């Protein structure tokens, strides 16, 4: 079985039963991360909305001290606007509230690279990225 097809099957298995606002572009991004996760973790069994939620709400001590959590800037409600530490308004993270999110892989990669380092102090794994997006497209 080809990795992309496998990923699609895995995705269908994990997300098919959950509410999702994902369109074709978001699904494509998720498929890419699923393929990467399969390579990175042999035991990968699909993304989890619950793990994505936990990642979003979690507090970390390993990142930069000013940004211990995603919620520092994005607030605990993904459907609400956030605010950067420099005062700029950030659009909602939930796909239902901001439909142009998570549709461009390069854009997603840029923000994961920046913000995972700021909050976690390390790069996020493909599974964490997929979990995160899975949570956000369900919101």
């Amino acid at each position, binding site marked *: 079985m080809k990795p992309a097809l496998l990923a699609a099957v895995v995705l269908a298995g994990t997300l098919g039963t959950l509410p999702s606002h994902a369109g074709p572009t978001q699904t494509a991004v998720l498929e890419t991360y699923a393929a990467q996760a399969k390579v990175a973790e042999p035991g990968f069994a699909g993304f989890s909305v619950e793990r994505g939620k936990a990642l979003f709400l979690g507090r970390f001590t390993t990142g*930069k*001290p*000013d*940004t211990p959590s995603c919620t520092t800037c994005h607030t605990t409600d993904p459907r609400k606007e956030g*605010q*950067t*530490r*420099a*005062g*700029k308004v950030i659009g909602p993270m939930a796909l239902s509230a901001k439909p142009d999110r998570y549709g461009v892989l390069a854009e997603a990669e840029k923000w994961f*690279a*920046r*913000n995972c*380092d*700021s909050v976690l102090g390390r790069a996020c794994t493909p599974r964490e990225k997929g979990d995160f997006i899975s949570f956000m497209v369900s919101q």
Partner: protein
Amino acid sequence: MQPRATARLLLIGDRLVNIERRSTDNPGRPPAPPTLLVWDWGVRVFHWALLAAVLLASGTGFLAPANWLNAHLIGGTAIVALLGFRLVWGWNGSTYARFASFALRAPRIVMHLREIASGRGAGEPGHNPVGAVMVYVLLALLGLISLTGLVVLGGVVKQGPLAGLTSYAVGRQWRGAHEALAIGLLVLIVGHLAGVVFESLRTGENLALAMLTGRKHVRAVPGVVPHRAHPGRAALLCAAIGLVALLGSVRLAALPGLGVPVLAPEPLYARECGSCHLAYPPSLASAASWTTVMAGLTDHFGENAELDAASAAQLRSWLVAHASETADTRVANLMRVADPASPQRITTTPGWRRVHGDVPESLFRAPKVGAKGACAACHEDAATARFDPQAIAVPKETNP
């Protein structure tokens, strides 16, 4: 009882004239009605309008916050217009409005002071010789204050007819003169009021009232050639001078401000930097600061803001090419010198701290502001690098 008549010598022009002291010391009769129209409408309107304009300009200049600048400019413009009218009226008004009727002549000033010292002398129809000195000094001072104000407006704020011709450094220098002259004006106004009170008590003529009604209890002085006012001629002259001044000012004000950066939009900058904070105009920081900032994007004020190498190189050269060294606005001059302890940060530069000294810390943390770096929360034109005083609007709801 007959009123006492006192001989009094008055030097009018080059002639000595003997004028009779008017009757003031007759307790049995009510005071005679004012006899002579001394101050024509032009002088009276000028005087009280000038007072209003000076109150507006000095009140806003000394007391009001920076975003009241337009009120200050309205006051200043009115003063200039009134001075122009008074100059025209000084040759086209009626007798005592004319400069010729209160020319500065040292012998008359000395004689007037001697009269005061010896307790002699009575009121005069027009300005007395010492009052005339005050009039000319006040007019000259107001002219100088207006001129220096125009230079400050052009050099520091980059507005008005001199904006295209005046550097920030020159504007700063003249600002000191503008303020010193304005304080001098306040002192002279106190002197003017003291003179009016003193002369009113001395002569029994309510001079402030006379400036309202135009009439005094005096007789026309023989030897002073009476002149009719020429309002039509004055109006024509004012219109001509006003038109030339207005067209000239508009033409000059249309020049691009000296050292005001005009940047073509840089979409990459707006997208990459402007998604987290105001896309700070490059003229807000020095080339050295921008270089430091762009070299440390993985720890950018406590966050990772890394860019791909090509984008970072493009933005670095764009920022350095338009850094504060290339501009001459007030903000560029204020922010050019960084705080050595945090060379990347605009909001710790001595210049930034000086101009935000009266802003409470709580305001920066208010939800509608969020941070010191959120310039646009209060400066509506922050993105343009102008930072006009008139564009400052502090958000109303500032309580968390």
